[in-house]
């Protein structure tokens, strides 16, 4: 009895704290050293970049995103699992590159692409992969997979690609 009452109380307290956090979310501004909602990125490896010769691209399927979104859809979750499984079987580092379609303005697209890359990184961390093995880069609307216009092209450009460091 006591145990379940304690759990219930803890849950209520947690919910109350979360509700409190939600209501002041807009007002809170971080200070140096405080954490943000993701996990800090590791230092870059010297001489390694997503487009460079020592990175293998295309080992994994790109993860695709909905319009103006950085959420990983349920239909894409299997790709994350596959990447995580491969990473557990080795010790290679990866770079996640985020991209957008052209239907946004350039600077906003650049940070949206980064947020997509970070969403993939966060999902891999949730699967138990160390964040120290995962870098991110965003190209925004640059380097589209399909240079055409219209939704069939754009849906192929809203993506995160994986580069495996050799």
């Amino acid at each position, binding site marked *: 009895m006591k145990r379940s009452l304690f759990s219930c109380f803890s849950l209520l307290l947690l919910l109350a704290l979360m509700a409190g956090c939600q209501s002041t979310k807009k007002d809170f501004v971080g200070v140096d050293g405080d954490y943000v909602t993701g996990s800090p990125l590791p230092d870059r490896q010297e001489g390694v970049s997503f487009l460079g010769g020592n990175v293998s691209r295309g080992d994994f399927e790109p993860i695709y995103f909905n319009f103006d979104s950085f959420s990983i859809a349920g239909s894409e979750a299997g790709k994350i699992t596959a990447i995580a499984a491969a990473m557990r079987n080795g010790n290679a580092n990866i770079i996640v590159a985020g991209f957008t379609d052209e239907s946004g303005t350039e600077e906003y697209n650049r940070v949206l692409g980064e*947020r997509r890359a970070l969403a993939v990184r966060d999902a891999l961390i949730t699967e138990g992969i160390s964040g120290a093995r995962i870098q991110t880069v965003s190209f925004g609307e640059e380097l589209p997979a399909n240079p055409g216009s219209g939704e069939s092209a754009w849906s192929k450009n809203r993506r995160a690609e994986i580069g495996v460091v050799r």
Partner: protein
Amino acid sequence: MKLRPIFSLALLLLICPQGRSQETPTITIKKGDAVAVSLQPLTGAEGAAATKVLENDLAISGWLNVVPGGQSGFTIQGSASAGSVEGRVVNAQGASVLSATYSGGTRSAVHQFADAIVEAITGNKGIATSRIAFVGTASGKKEIYIADYDGANVVQLTRDNSISVSPSLGPGARQLAYTGYQSGYADIYVINVGTGARNRVIKFPGTNTGAAISPDGGRMAVTLSKDGNPELYVTSIGGGGARRLTKTSGVEASPTWSPDASEIIYTSDDSGSPLLYRISASGGTANRLNTGASYNTEPSWSPDGKQVAFNTRGGGGFQIGLLDLARGSVRNLSTGGNSEDPTFGPSSRHVAYAQGDAIWIIDVPTGKTFKVISGVGKATQPSWSR
């Protein structure tokens, strides 16, 4: 809201003749009213070329309207030779309003003369000596260029052969910050425009972009993702001392400084779609700016501090909105087509933007548009010096 009808009535009483001859008439000068001036072609060895440049400067200025014949309150005259311009403005009574010599090359001298004319006749700051930095693709890659505001003297500032984007000019166009991908990542570089010297100043893990040099030239506002999420930071112009201003689960982008460098307006999609927020440059509460639109990006704060230009999306393309910060009112600018990346000019009445392959300027009060920079491949992301 209840005050408004009374205010309108008072205004109406003020401007409508009431038959009371002893009252001093109130002259209401609208921003769209240009002062009529006459331009006598400049004499001298370079007079013809100089006159063309001057005509263009006066047309874009917005404050002045060149009329034919002599039916105006001011006459502009002068001569141009050997890279100097001797310029004069006389009023209708023949008295001198302006008389000076300008040098530094014919175009520069004419631009200085044009700004002096605007200042002498209207008391306002001209734009003729300003410069616009932008991204051009003439080389086959995105590189940073700078040109006179009228499109002359295009100079390629970067030869990175990579992706070089998001230029931001500092005060007096002495320094330029931009995002470069030479390392394979998005890093911030600062160029000394005069010497061409360049330094990579921000290279944190993740993506570093959207650097905006503060009006005092000593700091930058920038988006960094190093802590795990793209957030808004302020750093020194050398890239050190990064201090984070925001903490959200969305993204922050495109900071723009207030003219006194005390505040920053930026885009955040923390609420679900990109909206404009205003925050102290020292950190604190972020206040949302209501524009009535759900998509608001690429803000630019006017040098007089009164307005913010920004991109809004609709009808299959991008438009430019203007938010009056004191009144909270918003208007969309009629620029005749898809227009991106608005940036205010030093006059606070001109906005430059990218449309088609070119950079255009709109004079907001008159609505007149001018194509100023073209022939550099596709020109985008203008940044206008102050």
